[in-house]
């Protein structure tokens, strides 16, 4: 079987896979990184979004063998080693941007890519449009948009502390 070697969350990883093995299967079943979810398995819902070489991709729609030599970051790779959450994770918690949590890993990964690609800042409408590839079936997106709007201020260095959600 082909062997794929890549970097996952900053650490070297390798696994023997089939050519048809999907990236999400490599992450979940071979590397046991089960934070990345499989929702629809048809490239629509975005629960499986991870970063490959700095770009958000749907890991259910990429072959593991395509990631030879790639840098992959999953939801498990965001928090600092001491457990300090990434500003986007912190914002999702502060703004209660989840209900069941199933879509959350993909939402967070997509949101980070969206914010990083838009240093000029995003309006609420642009955030909603930017989340086109991520489906949430619980919350109606409202708090997700609020969380991303707050997190971008921290990520762009506009504020030091995450703005608190209103009581």
């Amino acid at each position, binding site marked *: 079987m*082909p062997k794929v070697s890549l970097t996952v969350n900053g650490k070297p990883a390798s696994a023997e896979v*089939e*050519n*048809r093995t*999907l990236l999400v299967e490599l992450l979940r079943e071979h590397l046991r990184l089960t934070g990345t979810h499989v929702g629809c*398995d*048809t*490239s629509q819902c*975005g629960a499986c*979004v991870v970063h490959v070489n700095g*770009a*958000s*991709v*749907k890991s259910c*729609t*990429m*072959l593991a*063998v*395509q990631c*030879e030599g790639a840098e992959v970051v999953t939801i498990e790779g965001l928090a600092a080693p001491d457990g300090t959450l990434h500003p986007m994770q912190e914002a999702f918690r502060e703004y209660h941007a989840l209900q069941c949590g199933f879509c959350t890993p993909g939402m967070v990964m*997509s949101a980070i*890519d*969206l914010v990083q*690609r838009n240093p000029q800042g995003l309006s609420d409408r642009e955030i909603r449009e*930017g989340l*086109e*590839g*991520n489906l949430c079936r619980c919350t109606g997106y409202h708090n997700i948009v609020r969380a991303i709007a707050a997190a971008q201020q921290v990520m762009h260095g506009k504020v030091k502390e995450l703005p608190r959600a209103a009581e």
Partner: protein
Amino acid sequence: MYDFAYHRPSSVADAVKLLAADPDAKVMSGGMTLIPTLKQRLARPSAIIDLSGIQDLVGISVSASAVTIKAMTTHAAVASSAEVRKAIPALAEMAAHIGDAQVRNRGTLGGSIANHDPAADYPAAVLALGATVHTNTRRIAADDFFTGMFSTALAADEIVTAVEFPIPEKAAYVKFPNPASRYAMVGVFVAKGPAGVRVAITGAGANGVFRHHAMEEALARNWSPDALEGVGTDQEGLNGDIHASKEYRAHLVGVMAKRAVAKAG
């Protein structure tokens, strides 16, 4: 998904060699259509020839008269290119609204036009702008490239290497996306430029993208949304399905075309 052999050549020549040697092999660019197709077992290629290792197939160059985009350039790269946005803003704008952000990070120009999905956006841009498709062996005019739904003039061992878009005076693309899939139920790309006035319709035709000659004649006389008043669209040859009837698509063609001309200014 059935298993397959996997090749990741580093040159177009090697890719063509692999393709010529195996008639059941499939070329993969971004994989945004092919991988879902494989997952549904709608295709069973013996081998996948992944073009993502060919550095020479990525890049954008702009001259005084044309924008040339290499085949493996992603939609995200076209959408965020300041050069494309300046030379042909309608093209960058169109690329910025293909699929979703994750699809745009992987999907490519070459893959989109070689696949010729009847609801894809890029074929409308290629046809309306009168672009020239470059392959490993020849150059193909847009008018000759798209030959039917999911079919093109490409030979079995031919690979798209780039598309050269002449810079128009005016152009715009407007689509009516399906509310669920976001594929174009109807998309209209209008352009006025070196290739004359051209109107290309995607999403509507049962044979894929097509030019709307009656609209072109009307707009050549008078470039304004009003000129399209009363210019009908023949329902013969249009798609009718659960998403929209032929009648509705024909109506949408008129509405989207007027909006596109208004947007082009």
